[in-house]
């Protein structure tokens, strides 16, 4: 395990730590890297990064903007820290919120990024930015990253949707990639999928008879008025019918899961969403997003954040364990993030306000090196002092993790748009 907070000191610290932990293979890689770093290379060269290993991903999206100081970047002893308790991790000097004991135990799998920095400080714009990798632009709707993965990695003839969003949707879509890459939204993971079953009394035979007669009607319409309408409608009915018939939809049905497993994840919507995500990934879905609302803690920050963290701690840790147990962890990128951080200085109402200038996010699996902290903030978590990571950098890193060409150009109408904002480069520290 290692800590990288950039600069030579940390490299030395790391080497000491590596030897102490006795992780020989990692050590070897680090030495090599250290030597290269010593030569003073600055610009990260993507071609020199190890190839990405991600084949699928889970995004745990913390809607509302989680406080970085009260989660992954606490500043114990500082005036602005408030009542947040912290616990030590196995990385010397790295503490996180005490409400994350299970995550602390799994620190070896986590890449904590404490140096996120962005400029969008209002919810809808920032959520758009963190989903699309571009700020909102009234002339074009960018696809969410999940939709890009659906487009680039997803299988066209797959029974299940390629991008599933659990616990609601905030306007994220397939954008210029089209509705075929819109997220399939599960409003409540504890409920059955809406309209997935035929009405009572309409069995498979009857449904198929209906569809055959519909096709016949539509053929007539196509002959009279052109095939464009009926053809695209047939695609929609075909995909819907295939989903209805697919045994893979079991992945959506948590009632088939052992009660003990469900309880382990937590019976709240987030915990159940994490469980559903694990099941969907195993069934072949390349992207699942699980949302957790309630992070907009302008008031009661110190009671609300720990309550939310206890859900995160259960859901996230069980997800990591399950992905490992299912042999999926190494090629599954897990992302935990919100749309921004929160002001280090508390407001008068016992809360913290929006703060995009410095914040934290976490990754695990998918070839991202765990057991490390990337970047750091100053004494009050107000400014990034080391290794700033921008949102385009983050997206470029994900593209690298998936082996996607970040410069791939799409056309929204006649307007060229690259898969990732050209301002971004993969963050070297994530991968080596």
């Amino acid at each position, binding site marked *: 395990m290692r800590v990288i907070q950039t600069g030579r000191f940390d490299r030395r610290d790391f080497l000491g730590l590596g030897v102490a932990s006795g992780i020989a293979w990692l050590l070897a890689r680090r030495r090599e890297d250290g030597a290269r770093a010593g030569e003073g290379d600055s610009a990260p060269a993507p071609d020199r990064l190890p190839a990405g290993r991600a084949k699928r991903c889970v995004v745990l999206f913390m809607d509302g903007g989680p406080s970085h100081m009260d989660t992954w970047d606490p500043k114990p002893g500082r005036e602005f820290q408030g009542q947040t308790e912290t616990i030590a991790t196995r990385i010397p000097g790295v503490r996180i919120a005490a409400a994350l004991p299970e995550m602390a135990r799994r620190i070896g799998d986590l890449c904590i990024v404490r140096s996120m920095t962005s400029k969008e400080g209002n919810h809808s714009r920032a959520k758009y930015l963190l989903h699309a990798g571009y700020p909102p632009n009234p002339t074009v709707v960018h696809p969410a990253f999940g939709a890009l993965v659906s487009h680039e990695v997803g299988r066209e003839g797959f029974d299940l949707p390629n991008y599933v969003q659990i616990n609601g949707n905030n306007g994220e879509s397939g954008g210029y990639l089209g509705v075929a890459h819109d997220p399939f939204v599960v409003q409540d993971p504890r409920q059955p999928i809406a309209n997935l079953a035929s009405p009572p*009394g309409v069995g498979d035979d009857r449904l198929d008879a209906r569809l055959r*007669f519909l096709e016949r009607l539509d053929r007539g319409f196509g002959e009279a008025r052109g095939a464009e309408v009926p053809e*695209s409608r047939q695609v929609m009915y075909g995909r819907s019918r295939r989903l209805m018939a697919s045994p893979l939809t079991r992945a959506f049905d948590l009632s088939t899961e052992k009660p003990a497993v469900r309880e382990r994840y937590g019976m709240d919507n987030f915990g159940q969403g994490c469980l559903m995500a694990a099941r969907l990934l195993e069934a072949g879905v390349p992207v699942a997003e699980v949302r957790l609302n309630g992070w907009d803690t302008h008031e009661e920050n110190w009671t609300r954040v720990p309550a939310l963290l206890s859900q995160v701690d259960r859901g996230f840790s069980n997800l990591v364990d399950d992905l490992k147990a299912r042999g999926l962890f190494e090629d599954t990128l897990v992302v935990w993030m919100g749309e921004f951080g929160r002001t280090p200085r508390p407001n008068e109402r016992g809360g913290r306000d929006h703060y995009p200038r410095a914040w934290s996010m976490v990754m695990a699996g998918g070839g991202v090196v765990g057991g490390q902290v990337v970047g750091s903030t100053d004494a009050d978590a107000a400014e990034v002092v080391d290794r700033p990571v921008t949102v385009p950098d983050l997206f470029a890193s994900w593209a690298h993790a998936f082996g996607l060409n970040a410069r791939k150009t799409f056309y929204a109408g006649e307007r060229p748009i690259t898969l990732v904002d050209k301002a971004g480069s993969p963050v070297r520290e994530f991968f080596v």
Partner: protein
Amino acid sequence: MRARERFGRPAAAVAAGFLCASALAFGIVGARADEAAGPGRKDASEGMLEAQAAARAIDREVGKALEAEGLAPTGPADDAEFLRRVTLDLLGVPPTEEEVRAFLASKEPGKRAARVEELLRNPLYGDHMADLWGRLLFAGLRKYPIPEVENVFRWLAQGMNDGKGMDWLLREVVTATGNTKENPALAYTLRFRDGGIPADIGGATARLFLGVQIQCAQCHDHPYEAWKKGDFAGFAAFFNLVNPRPADPMDRKAGFVVEDPPMRTLARSKNRGGEGADIKGAARADPKFLGGAVYRDREEGSRRQALADWILARDNPWFARAMANRVWSWFFGRGIVNPVDDFRSDTPPSHPALLDTLALGFAESGWDLRFLARAVALSGTYQRTSRLPKGWQGDEAALRRFDRFYARGPVKPLSADQVFDSILRVTGMDDAFRRANRSEIERTRLFLLQQFVTQIDDDESGVAEQWAGTIPQGLLLMNGPLTQAGTRAGAQAGRGDRIGAIARENTLHRILDDTKDAAARVDRLYLTLLGRHPSEREASDAAAFAVRGRSGQGWEDLSWALLNSSEFMSNH
């Protein structure tokens, strides 16, 4: 630079040219000259004459282009085809069985024009216009509390039914002040509350009302057009002083307040930030009209009022064209300029003289939206059949060209609102819904729309260009509660689902109860669901399909198939 050249002529010359062109086009030179100077809505009969003249102008201009392209247009639509098309376009729902029968039976000459007038006086017209404009102006509004959403749509529908003009709508939304509880028009401003003022509201205003995509110049000088960053900042600056705030910070239900700051203090302060220092984004740039003069704050009137005056001025080269183009696209599925909200040198109008004619007629009508509706609906171009002549199937490129020149009647998908309202109407559940308590209706409506409207709700372009549907849409239409309740032949299934409880009976029940003959049943179902009689072959196919299996089930299956058909789900 080309855009500047096109629109950059001295304002007077533009206005003069504008008037001339239309007077000639309408063949009403002379008598109209004096009146043209003073706006004001015409009475109905006069409006009708002008609309008929505009309809002839449409056919003349479209005809010229067809001839130049060597394309032979299709013949006229039959009465059933026309009735369904125009009813869906003006009311958002298809005609009822009784309406179809009566219209087909009528021998009255001029019955189509008469029907257009009746539809324009039907209260559902306002509802449908409210859906169309509401989606455009208040995108994302469905996230608001239900009572406020309802207020906004009711207010808009009322205005449309009262015959309020586009000048009314523009002024209401662009200059809105007061409390959201009392002024529904504030929904437009509130939509941008979350950090979108002034940039996004400025960009949206230019795009929606002027068809100018100046917001591209927010980040960079426009690559193809003359717009510079300064143009955008100047335009957005008309909204700089707008700052929606909660009426009561302690009570979220108290609504939001928007006020224009007192210009007296603002104009006096040396640093314009003085009064507005705590106003978000205040006074970073001086307001400047598009391609025009800098606006100086005055003591009387707000910046936004000055902007509305400028947009509505007769020499504004964009507003009338943009609005005429937008309304045209609702009828024909595409604009004369495409994209409908992106007028630039490389998106020239397909029928330039036609656009100018409609724009001028619209301006002269006192911005009467029904003028445009009449002009289009009465035209032979709109009344052509959408049935393809032999030989046009299969060649997509040729077909697209055929459609681009309006050689046949338009074929376009129903919007989400139209789908929802049409299903209710043809299944006979709309009455039941109206009788049910209001909040229950809104809840159900929201619940259902939510499942497939996200995409359309956020699509401000207002033209559904894609036919591709999503899986949730497919599931909803195949298995959803509306489809279930509407195609149920037996007694209520008793599952106590939300819709079933509201709609205890439906049209299918009634038809099966009243009509025992299979052929007559098929006929009625076709009239009800598709607005026409079936052909002989269709009738025998449908009857054979419906009478198979256990009693009632076949009829449910037939209704289901008709309801899900491309013919039902599109306007053609």
